[in-house]
């Protein structure tokens, strides 16, 4: 039992209550409760993020965004969801039926699997595998598989082109992403997401973005760029470049199978932002500044609020990127990765190693 207990660190109030009442079957009940919470979180997050995206993009473009459905359009995601549920799922002639219906499930599954290991608070995490970072990198490959299958099975040249572009882009940028994460693993000395957060305990200057002199903030900016590319968002949205490929890999999808891609895209944005929070911004720790009076107030705010606050701040930065920058061309994208990001990342990794040997890294 002890091994399972370390793998599922649900030591919060509800988990302990279940253990008190049902000591025999607590393990299973807690897992079911956690998964239910996760499903609710993912579905509500997707609708919140879609609403936010539309509102924020509207204001970035001097528009208002949705205003009609409910007060300032807050019921808009529900209306969108109803529309998508009622729509027919069309299959193009000559499409591979099994793959066509299977493909949208991969990205959504990947989001669920990664959301399960994010440390939301001290004891609010479904599972904490020791190699959490490896798990994240491995699971995010499922998204690429889903996109490729969708593009291939649609029997549409634009879908296939979009899928190939998406796969090439995500595989290229995953190298840089892995190198940046490797840097954090090096300095924190652990690959478990919870331990990485705990290694940043203390003042705001103990977060990895500030703790590594100069390198931390550089790595953070690089993480933002690389993860934007990994998410297939503008300015790196070549996979679904509207002006060239109609909609890329999901051109032929409609109804709920389109909604799965759409949800996965938005929840992936949350996951990227949450990982940035975990790696650089101290996860669920409050931004303590060393003045005891202020710190007391900051500490009284629960950790998951800090976590979601930081995450939504980074999501805002992603949206800001999206509605400001124009799209890159495919050769510019590849030269950015292979000629700029990768060499700079390797140099950064080397410098972090030097810093650690000299004892400057925290």
């Amino acid at each position, binding site marked *: 039992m002890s091994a399972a207990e370390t793998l599922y660190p649900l030591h919060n109030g509800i988990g302990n209550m279940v253990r008190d009442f049902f000591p025999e079957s607590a393990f299973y009940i807690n897992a079911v409760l956690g998964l239910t919470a996760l499903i609710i979180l993912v579905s509500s997050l997707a609708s919140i993020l879609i609403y936010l995206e539309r509102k924020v993009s*509207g*204001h*970035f473009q*001097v528009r*208002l965004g949705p205003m009609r459905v409910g007060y300032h359009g807050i019921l808009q995601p529900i209306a969108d969801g109803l529309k998508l549920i009622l729509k027919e799922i069309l299959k193009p002639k000559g499409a591979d039926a099994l793959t066509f219906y299977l493909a949208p499930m991969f990205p959504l599954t990947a989001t669920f699997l990664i959301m399960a290991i994010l440390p939301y608070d001290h004891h609010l995490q479904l599972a904490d595998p020791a190699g959490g970072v490896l798990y994240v990198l491995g699971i995010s490959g499922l998204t690429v598989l889903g996109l490729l299958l969708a593009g291939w099975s649609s029997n549409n040249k634009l879908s296939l082109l979009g899928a190939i572009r998406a796969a090439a882009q995500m595989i290229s940028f995953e190298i840089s992403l892995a190198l940046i994460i490797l840097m954090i693993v090096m300095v924190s000395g652990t690959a478990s997401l919870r331990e990485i957060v705990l290694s940043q305990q203390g003042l705001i200057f103990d977060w990895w973005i500030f703790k590594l002199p100069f390198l931390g903030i550089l790595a953070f900016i690089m993480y933002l760029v690389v993860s934007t590319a990994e998410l297939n968002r503008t300015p790196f949205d070549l996979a679904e470049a509207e002006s060239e490929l109609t909609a890329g890999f999901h051109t032929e999808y409609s109804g709920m199978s389109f909604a799965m891609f759409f949800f996965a895209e938005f929840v992936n944005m949350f996951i990227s932002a949450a990982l940035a929070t975990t790696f650089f911004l101290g996860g669920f720790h409050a931004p303590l500044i060393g003045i005891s009076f202020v710190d007391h107030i900051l500490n009284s705010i629960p950790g998951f609020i800090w976590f979601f606050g930081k995450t939504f701040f980074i999501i805002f930065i992603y949206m*800001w990127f999206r509605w*400001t*920058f124009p799209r890159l061309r495919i*050769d510019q994208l590849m*030269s950015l990765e292979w000629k700029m990001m990768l060499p700079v990342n390797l140099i950064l990794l080397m410098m972090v190693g030097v810093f650690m040997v000299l004892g400057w890294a925290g």
Partner: protein
Amino acid sequence: MQNYEKMNDIFNTYPPMKQKNVPKESLLEHSTRYLKKICTGFYSLIQGMDITLKYFLNPKKVITQQYPENRDTLKMFDRFRGPVSLPHNENGEHACTACGICEKACPNGSISILATKDVSGRKVLGQYIYRISQCTFCGLCVEACPFGAIVLAKDFELTVYDRNELTWVLNKSKSQGSSDTSQGEYS
């Protein structure tokens, strides 16, 4: 050589445009150019983000109008082109002399000037016929008018149920009082 490098920087063509007999640049020159490109690139990105952030932080400046709700307070913009109208002063007089230049200037034939003679035998405006169904709101009539008698109004709620209602008589006859959009018998 300078030009080609500049063009490569701007367009980032693949394969890069090359000129023959170019002396090979040294590693120092190359790395300086590389660093400069990164710095100027970041600066221009930050400039763009600054502009969008200013838009985001000023929600009162949005252009979108919540139309049916703000119908009473909605004021159309200066450059808005609505239907042609003939402004009358407080005595019910207008500046039109029935010269017919606007009629000739109109590319669609949507204006007809019907002139009459008053008691002293002078040519005056009888009826200013304006067929809004043919009008493209180009404003050439307003530009052509030598007396500044006509303007493009700011109205935009112009829907009617009958096609005949789209022929307007713009001048108000003094006896009948104000009937700006009297139905036309001249369609």
